[in-house]
């Protein structure tokens, strides 16, 4: 029960904060001018609505808590988040080391650490996947990809 309640309350608080920020920023721009509604008009409307609905979500969670579903595999979230961290890390370093090296490292990480298939398989998948993408997109289709210091 606690988990469900925490999630809806947390989501409601975060979204109410975002709605409040949107409405506050919108108030700094023109709302209604002689020429019609200004740039703050629309964001003020949905920002205010966001605050109201988020408050309802929090209230509903506090007044009508629903039983939480049992988490079958609690480690699953960490696995997914570790994969995301590798993805975000690869996306970040690609501007310096290029798409091919970044993608090869990301693929190898997924194989070795997420699916625990060993270094050799990780290296083979990482190298092959990066080579195929480079060949298909960069060479055959002419799609520009981030390049590293070695030119690809």
């Amino acid at each position, binding site marked *: 029960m606690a988990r469900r309640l925490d999630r809806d309350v947390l989501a409601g608080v975060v979204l109410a904060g975002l709605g409040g920020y949107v409405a506050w920023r919108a108030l700094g721009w023109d709302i209604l001018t002689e020429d019609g509604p200004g740039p703050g008009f629309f964001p003020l409307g949905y920002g205010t609505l966001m605050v109201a*609905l988020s408050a309802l979500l929090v209230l509903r969670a506090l007044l009508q808590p629903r039983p939480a579903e049992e988490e079958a*595999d609690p480690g699953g979230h960490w696995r997914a988040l570790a994969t995301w961290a590798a*993805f975000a890390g690869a996306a970040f370093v690609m501007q310096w080391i290029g798409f091919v090296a970044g993608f090869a490292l990301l693929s190898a990480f997924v194989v070795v650490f997420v699916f625990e298939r060993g270094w050799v398989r990780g290296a083979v998948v990482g190298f092959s996947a990066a080579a195929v993408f480079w060949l298909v997109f960069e060479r055959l289709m002419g799609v520009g990809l981030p390049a590293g210091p070695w030119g690809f």
Partner: protein
Amino acid sequence: METFAALGHGFAVALQPVNLFWCFVGCFLGTIVGVLPGLGPAATIALLLPLTFGMDPTGGVIMLAGIYFGAKYGGSTTSILLNIPGEASSVVTCLDGYQMARKGRGGAALGIAAIASFVAGTFGIVALTLLAPPIAEFALSFSSPEYFALMVLGLSLVVVLGGSSLLKALLSLLFGLWLTSIGTDLFTSQSRFTFGSSFLLGGIDFMVIAVGVFAIAGVMESIRAREENTPIPVPNRLRELMPSWAELKACRFAFLNGSVTGFIVGVLPGAGSAIASFIAYGVEKAVSRHPEKFGTGVPEGVAAPEGANNADSGGAMVPLLTLGIPGGGSTAILLSALVVWGVKPGPLMMTESPEVFWGLIASLYIGSVMLLVMNLPLVPLFAQILRIPVYVLFPLIFGLALVGAFGVSDNPMNLMLLAGFGLLGYVMAQFGFPPAPLILGFVLGDAMERAVRQSLTMSMGDPAILVERPLSAVMLGLAVLVLISPLLGRLLRRRRAGATA
């Protein structure tokens, strides 16, 4: 008569060898990616969109339509062979499809799914052909207030029909509206929510959001759930894939039921193919002479939902092409893709870009035939895709997503945004927030803001303009009714329960 002449012209465009080739490539790739579990049509279109960059608009649009229809076809394969629905609309297909496969009739189940998809898909396209011109003509009389009201009505239906929680669907939609405000104001060039970044002045590319919340989040969810593929073997001889005469006879009503139900539900924004397939299955079971056998592997239990989720595609094209209003995540991505091509769906599309409009409709007919011809003999080949280990498959999906995100603007910042939206999609899924309203809010946000601001400019700031015009008033009234309908339903149920007690 005019419609048929225009359609004939469309066929002349679609039957050009180069367009036929793109239609085939779209159907083929759509089916292949659609077969992969966890990747529904929306993620498939978003992932494959970069492949159409650099093509001419007609060819690109035709290929995209092929991808959309192909992705719908592919969804049934995982349901039947793995008992894992490739997308929400294939959930019902698991019930009887997987049971047929376990009884050794997996080939026939795949064949029935392909035939039902063809019959119902074609019905949906015929209905689209006949309905699109009068609706577009009617919509030509719309002005800004009517457009605003129509969008409000469409989005209300989306949030009420599309998610389990109305509040969360609405919040997801508002979040999408905020994302679309990031950048430069349409009228005054005022920068909004850019956090001082010059990169954000141009706004966020829809593709980065779509691929992030659908594809990246989908892979993360599969990794969390530790999904592994062990498909039931498929016979590779065409004869074994063909359903028997008795099975086809049993599906007669299911083909019709799937066609009509799917099309009607498809036209409604937000209802989507998942609801269409559930309703068609329910109707089929209700009228069946042996309802107790449903769930044990009856062919009509495969034909009805598979037909419905393909007829739905034709239905969903009606509001998209005639009003420029998408009814779900996939059509929202299609709309944005069409805009990338310089084609603006809406009542003027038929007159401004007739070769694209009718070429697209004609290519849907051709794609439908192509998919049937391709799916029957190639099902064993498509099934082999499921044998690719997930530790190879997931990096490939990541690679496609990265190439697509970088390809739209050649800016590495997009890669970071992609990662951010992937995490957002995953968190939304864990917290029970549906992603489709977010995409729709993002895609329609600009048009909605433009419509309301133009309306208020026309009336010198008087909001009464939105309810003074009859059409606009009716649509806004309907939207309010739609939004309060869950509340009214709950009150009625409580009253009834109180009366019985």
